[in-house]
């Protein structure tokens, strides 16, 4: 299978789309903590200076002020790297935003290994886990530019707080133009009957690649993209478990508390199924190019193939 890397960075598509929405929606407010040039929010500042705030390097205050803005009817989007926009300001997200029922949109960029040259200190591998544990939070990881364009208006319209996990860089194109995507619903990208690979973010294209390789070996793998990690599409996950009897999850995150855990929770409750998880195996991140880090943390298509074979062995043994 041939994948195309999109010519546009996802951060640029995000801002283009947000600017478009903000033209008619006067309540959209952008906050950034000294990463406007990295996140592309500088374009918003240039277009709507009266609705953009660069708070400087103060994430806790940014989240709190966003909550206050939401209380006056504004629709605030906060921006900084995933690590700072979640764990750095977690109690603020918990109390000032979610507990207080103030719908702030938290946009975390450079999640997981896409933090690359910023290294382990900046590599959010727990962000989905920490925000997923907060009631009312919606957690979304857009896969490509088509998806970003398709869902952003719905992100604006959601009644509660949202964590949007955004790979800033040029994404691999997974969806064709015009694909309909709905928050809370997973998407079946390839049918298969032996096993389901459930992937999110940068791992979706790896999963599709792995399915090609598996097909060559006579293994028929279904590939599903779960981009709304919370609330997860339980119906689809259960259907995959029932129909294929084995699941491999693939995420750019610690295998604890992220997509793999969410899938396992659903299966444990409704349809116990052997599951193997691709992702960072409870380790800290480290510095390096993304392709190095994918190999280092066993997050390539080849690793998915290997885990798929393992889970199929378990399926055969019934464990």
């Amino acid at each position: 299978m041939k994948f195309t890397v999109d010519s546009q960075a996802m951060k640029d598509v995000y801002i283009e789309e947000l600017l478009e929405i903000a033209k008619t929606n006067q309540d959209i407010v952008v906050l950034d903590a000294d990463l406007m040039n990295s996140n592309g929010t500088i374009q918003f500042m240039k277009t709507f200076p009266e609705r953009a705030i660069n708070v400087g390097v103060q994430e806790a205050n940014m989240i709190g002020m966003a909550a206050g803005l939401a209380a006056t009817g504004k629709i605030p989007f906060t921006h900084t790297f995933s690590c700072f926009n979640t764990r750095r300001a977690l109690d603020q997200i918990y109390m000032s935003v979610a507990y207080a029922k103030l719908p702030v949109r938290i946009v975390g960029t450079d999640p997981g290994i896409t933090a690359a040259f910023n290294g382990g200190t900046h590599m959010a591998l727990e962000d989905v886990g920490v925000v997923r544990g907060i009631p009312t939070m919606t957690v979304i990881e857009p896969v490509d530019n088509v998806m970003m364009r398709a869902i952003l208006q719905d992100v604006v319209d959601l009644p509660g707080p949202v964590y949007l996990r955004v790979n800033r860089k040029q994404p691999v194109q997974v969806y064709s133009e015009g694909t309909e995507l709905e928050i809370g619903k997973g998407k079946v990208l390839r049918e298969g009957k032996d096993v389901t690979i459930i992937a999110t973010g940068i791992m979706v294209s790896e999963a599709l690649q792995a399915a090609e390789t598996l097909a060559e070996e006579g293994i028929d793998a279904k590939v599903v993209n779960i981009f709304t990690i919370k609330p997860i599409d339980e119906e689809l996950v259960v259907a995959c478990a029932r129909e294929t009897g084995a699941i491999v999850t693939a995420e750019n995150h610690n295998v604890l508390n992220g997509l793999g855990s969410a899938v396992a929770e659903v299966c444990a409750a409704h349809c116990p199924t052997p599951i193997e998880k691709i992702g960072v195996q409870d380790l800290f991140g480290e510095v390096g190019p993304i392709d190095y880090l994918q190999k280092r943390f066993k997050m390539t298509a080849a690793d998915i193939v290997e885990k798929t074979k393992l889970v199929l062995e378990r399926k055969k043994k019934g464990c």
Partner: protein
Amino acid sequence: MKALDRQEVQKLEEFAREIRIETLKQFGNLGFGHVGGAMSIIELLAVLYGKVMRIDPKNPKWEERDWLVLSKGHAGPALYSTLALKGYFPLEMLKTLNQGGTNLPSHADRNLTPGVDMTTGSLGQGFSTGLGVALGHRMNKKDNYVYIVLGDGESQEGQIWEGVLFGGNAKLDQMIVFVDYNKQQLDGYVDDINPLGNLKEKWEAFGWHAQEVDGHSVEEIYAAIAQAKAAKGQSSVIILHTIKGKGCNFAEGIEFNHHMRFKPEQIEAAIEALKEVE
């Protein structure tokens, strides 16, 4: 804003006394509570709700209202008494403080209590949300005021100083911040734990219009609010020198009065003593 006349001063002092009594009754029903920091902000609440704020107790979410953000959320019971006395909800409801299913939790909650504008409790956070409310009003071209109440122990939080830096630069002149400088925190005296030093100079260094007043004088509080409102183009703070546990005879002057346990007769005696002051 003209200075208060004698009759107005008396009226606000009487309001403060009523708030204090109703707050002690709430604690009395429980046998424990955050007595110290509730007692120290009562004159401020009396001035704000008795004279300064544009409010409609029958319409707590009124768009034109002034907001109060009680960043030191543990003083919730003092705010609840004030709101009940103003008619936001029946006085009877004050008996439900901290009971299962209550609308009056220990720490202030915007989704539970009519008249409570912000959810607070984790210290430092209310300040930022208050700044956000002031920014929202400015963006919406509204003239509502926001009043934010910080604690002195709370001022040890890093988030407070993030807010002081941002707020000084943002020049939010439809917002007044109050610091309840009662010199005590849960574990004892602020000066023994992590002293704040000269708070007025610190806030001034961050660009704020800063004043210091006797936080138990309704006249001084009111005059300071008038001055703060006159300081256009600058964010304002008023540091209230207060006494933790003020007016509650078993709490005032006690080192560990942040959260106390007491007997019903202690509350009764404290209320009697307040009634005698007339």
